[in-house]
């Protein structure tokens, strides 16, 4: 092997991309040629230096990406945020592409709730309660094969998970449907939570719904769900309990779009408590919309911008 060929083979040798016989020829050459051997050492030193450049995206970023994606697919929260940044405009433009999936949303206050696996199991024990609602003509079953094992008798053992899907329909003012939605608002799937909270917000008069909205706003990990919850709480912006949660969220939520919605709702009704909240907010807020809004309200209320 010539030095020229050996040098060309070094990266492939390093990355294990040569055939065994090519590898052997490279090794033979390295044994005999000091210059090429030094080159191989340089290649080896390059690897760890590059490895240290590697970065891991934060778990928060991954969760945000997932939430944005599911919100985009649902055609829901993303498009309705107050700011019209390029991403949201992009989502709005995309909404037309998702007509096929729009069947997951039910217009005119009726809901078809798609309940999967454990959720269906949760519904089953309360079957008499569900009975009046219309159940789909046939259950769909999806199977996932977990393992396949031949046995000694010439047969085979297949372990599979089965997921049953039921479709339950009813009107939004149906108490049973509301109860199912309240359960769905706590589902693991953020897309189901977004949709459920979106539907529940049409019934804020119910104290159960109000509590679910407050809980979603204060604790849901998905910003799309929290945005839907703020929207649902709009008619209740003067209630002390709601305002307490709004103030907490304004000071602690890490999503600027949520804080923008919350500050708008909170300042619609002005009380003395709001001054302290906004002054605290001004100490740490970095979103310019929220800052300007707070500053304006504090000025209008003749309060100082900062705390002393």
């Amino acid at each position, binding site marked *: 092997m010539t030095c020229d060929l050996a040098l*060309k083979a*070094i*990266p*492939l040798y*390093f*990355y294990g*991309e040569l055939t065994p016989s090519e590898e052997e020829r490279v090794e033979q050459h390295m044994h005999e040629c000091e210059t090429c051997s030094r080159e191989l050492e*340089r*290649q080896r*030193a*390059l*690897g760890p*230096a*590059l490895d*240290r*450049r*590697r*970065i*891991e*995206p*934060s*778990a928060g*970023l*991954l969760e*945000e*990406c*997932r939430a*944005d*994606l*599911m919100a*985009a*697919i649902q055609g829901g929260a993303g498009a309705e945020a107050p700011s019209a940044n390029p*991403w949201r405009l992009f989502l709005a433009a*995309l909404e037309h*592409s998702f007509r*096929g*999936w729009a069947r*997951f949303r039910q217009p005119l206050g009726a809901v078809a709730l*798609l309940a*999967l696996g454990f959720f269906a199991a949760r519904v089953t024990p309360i079957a008499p309660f569900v009975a009046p609602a219309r159940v789909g003509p046939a259950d769909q079953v*999806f*199977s*996932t*094969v*977990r*393992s396949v094992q031949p046995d000694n008798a010439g047969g085979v053992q297949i372990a599979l998970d089965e997921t049953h899907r039921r479709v339950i329909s009813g009107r939004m003012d149906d108490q049973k449907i509301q109860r199912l939605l309240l359960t769905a608002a706590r589902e693991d*799937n953020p*897309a189901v939570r977004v949709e459920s909270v979106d539907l529940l917000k049409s019934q804020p008069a119910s104290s159960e719904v109000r509590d679910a909205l407050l809980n979603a706003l204060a604790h849901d990990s998905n910003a799309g769900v929290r945005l839907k919850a703020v929207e649902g709480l709009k008619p209740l912006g003067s209630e002390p309990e709601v305002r307490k949660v709004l103030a907490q969220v304004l000071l602690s939520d890490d999503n600027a779009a949520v804080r923008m919605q919350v500050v708008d709702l909170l300042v619609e009704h002005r009380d003395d408590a709001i001054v302290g909240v906004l002054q605290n907010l001004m100490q740490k807020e970095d979103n310019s919309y929220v800052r300007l809004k707070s500053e304006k309200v504090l000025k209008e209320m003749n309060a100082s911008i900062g705390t002393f």
Partner: protein
Amino acid sequence: MAEHTAGTAGARLSSQVDSLIRAAQRGDQDAFEQLVRVYDQSVLRQAMNLLRSPEEARDVYQEVFLKVFRNLHTFRFDCSFHTWLYRIVTNVCLDHLRKRIVRKEEPAVVETGEGRVDRTESFEEGSAHADPERKLWNRQLQERIEEGLQDLTPRERMVFEMRHYDGMRLRNIGEILGTTEDAAKNCLFRATQKMRSALGDFV
């Protein structure tokens, strides 16, 4: 034995992925979400490392999986889903890298699992304790690596990223990029040559 176990686990994952794809193709949104979760971390990691910007990585993530969502019905199982997906990933990343070349920008600070990191400081091992000479050396090495990476064409950068960091085989990389294994080999060779020449006496 270990290989056999890994093979079995791989086959099981592949069979689960196939079930998810089929369910998602039938319109099962939950299956689509599960399918996304099998791959999204590595897609985001690749975008983050190529583009060094959380905002751009986020855009890549959305573009990729929205394309998957819209085109999944065209997937016919005639190649592995991984290859199909990474064709989309590489196309989207190549677009961003090309735009990056036009804009000539590279963010200095990146958001990582460990918080915000200044690229120019990320090489300083145990920076609080490292001696000043070592710190200076690390900083210069880091700068040289960044310069070297800037010299790579978007295609060379993709091949280098997929081989060095993601451990993909060149045959698979060629398949993803719609080219031959030999072309991928040449790309990797050129990329490593450029990197070694940028690093000069450092390695």
